[in-house]
């Protein structure tokens, strides 16, 4: 099989990179002395879980680290469990965590005593996109047509499906509602992105704001239709995904007259007590992961916005994003009653 040969070549290449990188790693002052625990503040099977397990696979396959990586799901309380674990083990640098938007939304929405400042940022790996999807059978020509239909219908007639409550999907929904004047969606929370996409195919909801990777199969299967992407620019992936469209062919929501922008952080943090050397090790590790062919393939499949950030730049981004979430959630009335 062709893909197989390709994969093997990629493997060999990656191994080469690893060998070249080895002396550099040896020079770094710190290396893990025991297995590194990789916490996922979400359940098995979701977007963050897929990515974390994928990273684990890449690290193991290419021998990027001497000690193994152990993946742990701690998704209780909308991820609060995982974050609190990081907070409480501040002195153990053998713990890293992958984040999603619940890094900001969970403390704000549930009042859990936690902030991203309780951890040390390592790097932003990518930004996950959100796309407005509808069922193909409903035949909306573009985002504008859909929005007009929502505006024309009675209040709460249209149903928006999303993952979880008071989290990213509902925040986007609230932001769209702001543009609708006095019309609202009925927001239906489900417990996973895949489920939302299927409910949309089954016609139980009218639209969703699924991540690309969650709905790509149904798009290719001509069941769902992407209307617009919640980003400032169109996607940069130009390979055809369906017969006639690529990710880059999806217009931005600005183009469609819907002034909403939202992306989700896929980043890595370690514990707050970690030293500069330890952070440097992880930054280096993830640079190596991102250099692999496997990673590039994964990014393409999920139409991720590839933005790598680390150090002060990342800190600044985090502060700005937290402020933005606070504002959005306050506007929508999602903040937890002060506890």
């Amino acid at each position, binding site marked *: 099989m062709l893909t197989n040969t390709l994969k093997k070549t990629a493997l060999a290449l990656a191994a080469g990179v690893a060998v070249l990188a080895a002396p550099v790693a040896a020079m770094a002052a710190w290396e893990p*002395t*025991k*297995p590194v*625990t990789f916490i996922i503040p979400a359940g098995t099977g979701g977007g963050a879980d897929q990515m974390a397990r994928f990273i684990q696979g890449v690290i193991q396959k290419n021998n990027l680290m001497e000690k*193994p990586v*152990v993946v*742990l799901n701690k998704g209780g309380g909308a991820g609060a469990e995982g974050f609190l674990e990081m907070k409480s083990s501040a002195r153990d640098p053998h713990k890293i965590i992958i984040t999603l938007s619940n890094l900001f939304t969970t403390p704000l929405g549930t009042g859990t005593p936690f902030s991203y400042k309780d951890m040390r940022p390592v790097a932003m790996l990518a930004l996950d996109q959100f796309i407005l999807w509808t069922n193909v059978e409903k035949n909306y020509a573009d985002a504008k047509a859909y929005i007009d239909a929502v505006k024309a219908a009675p209040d*709460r007639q249209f149903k928006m499906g999303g993952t979880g409550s008071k989290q990213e999907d509902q925040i986007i929904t609230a932001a769209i509602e702001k543009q609708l004047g006095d019309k609202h969606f*009925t927001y239906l929370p489900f417990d996973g992105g895949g489920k939302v996409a299927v409910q949309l195919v089954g016609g139980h909801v009218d639209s969703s704001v699924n991540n690309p990777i969650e709905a790509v199969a149904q798009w290719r299967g001509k069941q769902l239709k992407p209307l617009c992407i919640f980003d400032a620019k169109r996607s940069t992936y130009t390979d055809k995904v369906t017969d006639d469209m690529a990710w880059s062919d999806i217009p931005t929501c600005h183009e469609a007259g819907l002034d909403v922008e939202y992306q989700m952080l896929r980043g890595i943090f370690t514990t707050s007590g970690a030293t500069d050397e330890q952070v440097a090790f992880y930054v280096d590790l993830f640079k190596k992961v991102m250099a692999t062919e496997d990673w590039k393939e994964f990014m393409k499949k999920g139409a991720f916005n590839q933005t790598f950030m680390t150090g002060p730049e990342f800190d600044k981004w985090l502060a700005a994003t937290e402020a933005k979430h606070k504002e959005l959630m306050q506007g929508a009335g999602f903040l937890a009653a002060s506890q």
Partner: protein
Amino acid sequence: MSDITEPRKDDDEPALVSHRTADIVVACLFLVASAIVIKDATRLGFSWRPNEGPAPGYFPFYIAVVMAISSAINLARAVISKAEADETLTTKTGVLRMSAIFVPALIYVFATSYIGIYVASAIYIAAFMYFFGKFPIWKSLAVALGISGVSFVMFEIWFLVPLPKGPIEAAFGF
């Protein structure tokens, strides 16, 4: 290879707790649980909201109410019952035997937080076999270390599932 005690004979031992007392206590605990749930449900609100359906406290509230009512009935039945009053729930020997495994289990769980699950398990199994199973000490130790060892290899090395570990494992670099 012999058990230390013979199966119990019901008739010749004094009752420690009667069926009725236990029934009353458990029913009261149920009532307490219902009270706790109702308290939190009132905080959350248990109304039927327009456009939304039930509020977060709706189900817990009514569930707790049903639980309270049925426990109250259970309590009343237990209090007035005479037939069950004489029945023995457990005897002194029974409680002793149960504590033989339960009290060490408590200590075991407590110890796990400090010395790790593998060492604690080994000590727990060995001690139980030695004191209650009357096994020779070498046999107890062999079985205990064997079980701990096998689970260590299985969880930490094969399946990479981290379990609580203490200073001894840390000394070996885990």
